[in-house]
C-alpha cells in the first residue's frame, strides 16, 4: 500500500524520527524501561497521564508510578519480560505524581538489541479511568435499577398479599354476615307457613314458598361463589389420588346419588391421577350431581364413571343419560353463571361447572364435554396419571 511503501523507502534516520513522532503524539502513554525497571523514554501522554515530565521520569525507577501495594506486580512483569513474554491488555492501577490512582490497560513487550538479547521493555499504558468510571456508574445504575425493581416487586407483592387478605376477609364476611339474615328470612318464611299456614290462602302460601325458594337459591349462589373464590386462591399441593374410593365417598355424601335415586356404574379398575384430593372431590361431585340432576322427567339417572389411559395422562369420564347439551354450547357451559335455556327448569347456580374447570386448571389439567341434545352428556377431566402404588402411599 502507498503509505507502507513510502515509510519503507525512508532512510533509517528519517524513519526513526518518524516513529518517534508517532510515539510522541500517541494518546497512550508509551514508556520504555530497562530490565532493571529504569525508565528510558517517556512520551507526552505519559507526562499527561502520570504528571511526571520526561525529564523527571527518565532515569528513575518505574516504581514511581506503581502504588505501594502493587509493587510486587513489577517483579512479576520483569520476570515475564526476561522470559521474552508479552503482556497484553493487563488492567491495573498506577498512580500519578500527585498520588491519584490511574486505571490503566497495559501492554508490555520486550525490547531486543541487534543480537536479539532482551534489554528492556516498552510499555503502552492506556488510561481507562474514564471507561472504568463509566463502567462503575453503569454498574451502580444497574444495581440501583435492580434494587428499585426488587423494591417495586416487594411493594407489589405486599399490595397483592394485602388484596388477597382483603378478599379473604371479604369472603369470611360474606360467609358469616351475608348468610345470617338470609337464613333468618328463609326461617321466618318457613315459620310463617308452619305456624300460620292455615290462615293463608293458596296465593299467600305460594308467595311464601317463593320467598323460601329464592332464599335457598341465594344461599346456594353465595355458597358456590365462595367455593369458586376458594378454588382460585387456595394453595394446591399434588398427590397421587385413587379415583374409585373418591367416587364412593361422593356418592355417600349426596342424597341425589343414592342407589335408590340414581344408578351409578363404576367401570373398575379406575386409574389414579396426580392431583389435589379436595379439588378432585369438588370437581367430581359437581359432575356427578349434575349428571343425576339434568335428566328428563321420569327418567332414572344412569351414570357411568370410567377412566381412560392417554399416554402420561388419564381421562376420567362421567357419562350420563341426561337431557344432553347442543354442541354450540359446549364451550360456554364452563363459564361463570352460564345456564342454558334447556336447564332453566332445573335448580342450579350456573357456577358448578366453572368451579370444575377452575379446580382442574389449577391442578394443571383440562376439562371437556361430548354431548348432543337428548343423547346424554359425557364430561371428562384429564390429569397426569399416577402409578397405582403411589396413590396408595399418597392416600395414607
Amino acid at each position, binding site marked *: 500500500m502507498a503509505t507502507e511503501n513510502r515509510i519503507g523507502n525512508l532512510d533509517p534516520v528519517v524513519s526513526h524520527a518518524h516513529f518517534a513522532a508517532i510515539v510522541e503524539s500517541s494518546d497512550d502513554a508509551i514508556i520504555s524501561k530497562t530490565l532493571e525497571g529504569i525508565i528510558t523514554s517517556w512520551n507526552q501522554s505519559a507526562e499527561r497521564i502520570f504528571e511526571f515530565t520526561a525529564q523527571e521520569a527518565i532515569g528513575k525507577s518505574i516504581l514511581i508510578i506503581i502504588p505501594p501495594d502493587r509493587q510486587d506486580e513489577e517483579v512479576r512483569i520483569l520476570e515475564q519480560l526476561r522470559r521474552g513474554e508479552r503482556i497484553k491488555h493487563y488492567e491495573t492501577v498506577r498512580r500519578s505524581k500527585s498520588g491519584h490512582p490511574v486505571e490503566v490497560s497495559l501492554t508490555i513487550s520486550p525490547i531486543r538489541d541487534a543480537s536479539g538479547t532482551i534489554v528492556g521493555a516498552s510499555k503502552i499504558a492506556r488510561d481507562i479511568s474514564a471507561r472504568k468510571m463509566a463502567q462503575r456508574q453503569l454498574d451502580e445504575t444497574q444495581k440501583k435499577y435492580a434494587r428499585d425493581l426488587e423494591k417495586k416487586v416487594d411493594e407489589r407483592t405486599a399490595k397483592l398479599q394485602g388484596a388477597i387478605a382483603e378478599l379473604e376477609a371479604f369472603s*369470611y364476611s360474606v360467609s*358469616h354476615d351475608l348468610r*345470617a339474615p*338470609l*337464613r*333468618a328470612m*328463609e326461617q321466618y318464611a318457613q*315459620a310463617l307457613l308452619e305456624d300460620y299456614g292455615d290462615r293463608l290462602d293458596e296465593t299467600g302460601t305460594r308467595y311464601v314458598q317463593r320467598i323460601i325458594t329464592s*332464599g335457598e337459591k341465594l344461599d346456594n349462589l353465595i355458597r358456590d361463589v365462595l367455593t369458586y373464590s376458594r378454588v382460585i386462591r387456595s394453595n394446591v399441593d399434588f398427590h397421587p389420588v385413587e379415583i374409585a374410593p373418591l367416587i364412593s365417598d361422593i356418592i355417600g355424601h349426596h342424597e341425589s346419588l343414592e342407589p335408590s335415586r340414581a344408578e351409578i356404574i363404576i367401570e373398575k379398575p379406575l386409574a389414579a391421577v396426580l392431583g389435589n384430593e379436595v379439588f378432585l372431590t369438588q370437581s367430581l361431585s359437581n359432575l356427578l350431581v349434575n349428571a343425576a340432576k339434568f335428566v328428563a322427567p321420569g327418567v332414572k339417572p344412569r351414570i357411568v364413571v370410567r377412566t381412560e389411559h392417554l399416554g402420561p395422562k388419564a381421562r376420567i369420564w362421567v357419562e350420563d343419560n341426561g337431557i344432553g347439551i347442543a354442541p354450540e354450547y359446549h364451550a360456554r357451559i364452563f363459564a361463570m353463571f352460564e345456564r342454558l335455556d334447556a336447564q332453566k327448569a332445573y335448580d342450579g347456580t350456573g357456577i358448578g361447572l366453572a368451579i370444575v374447570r377452575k379446580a382442574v386448571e389449577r391442578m394443571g389439567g383440562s376439562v371437556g364435554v361430548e354431548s348432543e341434545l337428548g343423547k346424554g352428556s359425557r364430561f371428562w377431566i384429564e390429569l397426569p396419571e399416577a402409578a397405582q402404588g403411589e396413590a396408595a402411599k399418597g392416600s395414607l
Partner: protein
Amino acid sequence: MRGPILLVEDNEDDVFFLQRAMKSAGLNYPIVVATDGQQAIDYLSGAKEFSDRAKFPVPELVLLDIKLPKVHGLDVLKWIRSESSLQTLVVVMLTTSHLEVDVDRAYRLGANSFLVKTSASEKLERMLRSIHDYWLQLNHPPPRLPNGNNGQKQ
C-alpha cells in the same frame, strides 16, 4: 343434676329458631343464652352477674358460634381450653359457614364437634335431636370436679 346447654349466639333470630326447633323436636332441655363472647366467659367462670352457681350452673354442653361480639368464638374456645376446670367441657361449634380455616382452627383449639347452622326447620330439628341424643344421652360426659364447681376459676 346435669347442667344446661349454654348457647353462645349473638343473632337473636338464630336464638329464636333454635329454641323453636328444640320445642318442636320435643326437647325440653334447659338452655341458657350468652349473646357475646365475654358474657360466655363470664358465665363459665361464674363471674359478675353469674356468680350464683345454683342459679347459673355449669353447662353440660356449649353450643358456640364463631363470629361473636366482644370476644370471638374461637377465642372463647381457646380460653375454655386454657382453664384447667373447663378443659374437658364439651364444646360444639355451631356456626354459619364451614370455612376450612374456621373448621381447622376450631378442632386445633379443642372443639368436640363442628356443625353448620341450617335454615330448613326440619333439618335444624334433626340436628338438635342428634346433638341431644349423642352428647347428652349416648355420650359419657367427662367426670365432674369433686366440688362441682367445674366452671369456676381455681
